[in-house]
C-alpha cells in the first residue's frame, strides 16, 4: 500500500483528531480508540488492524502517557508513504490535533475554577468529587487485572498486584524497582 497524502488527506487526518479531542473525558485517550479504529482502519483504510492494535499495546507497555498511541497511529499512517519526514509530520499532526482542543478547555476551566475557588459551588465540586476520583483509581487498577479471572491459574499475578499495592501504600520504595521485579518474575516464568 503505497500512496501519498494530498492536502485534503492531511486536513481529514487533522480534523478527525481535532473533533475527537474533547471526547477524551475521564479515563483518558483510550476512550476514543474505537472511533479512531473505525475511521482509520475501516473507512479510510490508512492502517491495518494489526498496526492499530500494536500501536495501543506498545503505548501501554512503554513509559509515558497512553495517549502516545495516537502519535504512533499517526506515524504508521505517514509511514505508508515510506518516508520518515512524512511520518514525522503525520505523527505531530495527529498528536497536536488531539491535544490542542482539550488543552485549551482544561486551561480555561481550571483558570476559571481557580479565580472562583472561594465560591461554594467550586469547593463543593472539589470536595464532592474527591472520594469518587479515589475510587476510580482503585477501579482502574482492578480493571487492568480483570482479564486474569481464573484464580487457579492466575493467583500469582493477583498476589503480585496485591503485594505491590501494599508496598506503594505503606512504603516509599522506588516504583521502578517494583516494575523491574515484576519484569523479572515474568522472565523467570514465576507468574
Amino acid at each position, binding site marked *: 500500500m503505497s500512496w501519498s497524502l494530498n492536502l485534503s488527506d492531511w486536513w481529514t487526518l487533522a480534523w478527525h483528531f481535532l473533533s475527537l479531542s*474533547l471526547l*477524551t*473525558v*475521564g479515563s*483518558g485517550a483510550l476512550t476514543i480508540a474505537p472511533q479512531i479504529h473505525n475511521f482509520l482502519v475501516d473507512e479510510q483504510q490508512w492502517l491495518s488492524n494489526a498496526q492499530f492494535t*500494536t500501536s495501543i499495546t*506498545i503505548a501501554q507497555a*512503554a*513509559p*509515558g*502517557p497512553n495517549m*502516545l498511541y495516537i*502519535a*504512533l497511529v499517526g506515524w504508521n499512517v505517514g509511514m505508508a508513504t515510506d518516508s520518515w519526514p512524512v511520518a514525522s509530520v503525520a*505523527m505531530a499532526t495527529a*498528536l497536536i490535533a488531539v*491535544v490542542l*482542543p*482539550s*488543552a485549551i*478547555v*482544561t*486551561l480555561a*476551566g*481550571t483558570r476559571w475554577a481557580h479565580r472562583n475557588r472561594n465560591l*461554594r*459551588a467550586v*469547593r*463543593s465540586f472539589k*470536595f464532592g*468529587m*474527591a*472520594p*469518587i*476520583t*479515589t*475510587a*476510580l*483509581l*482503585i477501579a482502574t487498577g*482492578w*480493571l*487492568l487485572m*480483570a482479564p*486474569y479471572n481464573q484464580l487457579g491459574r492466575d493467583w500469582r499475578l*493477583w498476589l*503480585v498486584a*496485591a503485594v*505491590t*499495592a*501494599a*508496598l*506503594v*501504600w505503606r512504603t*516509599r520504595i522506588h*516504583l521502578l524497582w*517494583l*516494575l523491574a521485579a515484576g519484569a523479572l518474575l*515474568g*522472565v523467570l516464568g514465576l507468574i
Partner: protein
Amino acid sequence: MPTLEVNNKGAQYDCRPNSRRELFICFTWIALQGFGGAAPVAQRELVEKKRWLSPQGFLEDWTVAQIMPGPNVVNLSLILGDRHFGISGAIAALAGMTILPLLLILVVAVAYNEYAHYDLVERTLKGMGAVAAGLIIGTGFKLLSSLKSNPIGFPASFILIVVTFVAIALFRWPLLWVLLATGIPSFIWASTRLARRERVERT
C-alpha cells in the same frame, strides 16, 4: 499570573518549581516512570519529593485533571505548569510529558516489530502489567488518607467509594453515567455541609 495556592496550612508543601526547565525535567521524569498509569509516579514526585503539592492539593488537582477532557496526567502537567508560569509553563510541562517518551516509544515500536513473537517479551509484559495494576491500586489507598479532612465526612465518602468502585469495576457501567449518578448527589451533599459549616462559623 495566578499565585500559588497553599492547600496545606502546615506550610510543609509550599515548594514551587524555580523555572520552566525544572517543570520540563520533572514531568519528563514522571512520564518516563509512568508505566500503565502515571498517578503513582505523579503523586510520588509532586507530593513526596518536590513538595509542590500537599496530599489534599494533589487529590484536588487530580480530580480536576480527571474531569476535564484530555488524558488526566497530561492535564495535571498543564494545570501545574500554568499555575506557576502561565501558558509557557503549561507548554514546558506538556513538552516534558511528551517529547522524550515519544522518541522512546518509536524505538520500542521498531524493537517490538523485531521481537514481538518471542514468548519472553510477552511474559515480561505480563509481570510488569500486574505490578502496574498494583501501583495504581496502592496509590488509590494512599489518597484515602487525605479524605479525612474532607467536609463531606466519613460515611458519605465510604458510600461514594464503594458505589463508584462497584459500578465501574464490577458492573462496567459507562463512566459518564456513573460520574453523573455519584457526582451530583455528592456535590449537593458537599454543598449543604459547607453551607452548614459557614452558618456555624458565623454564629
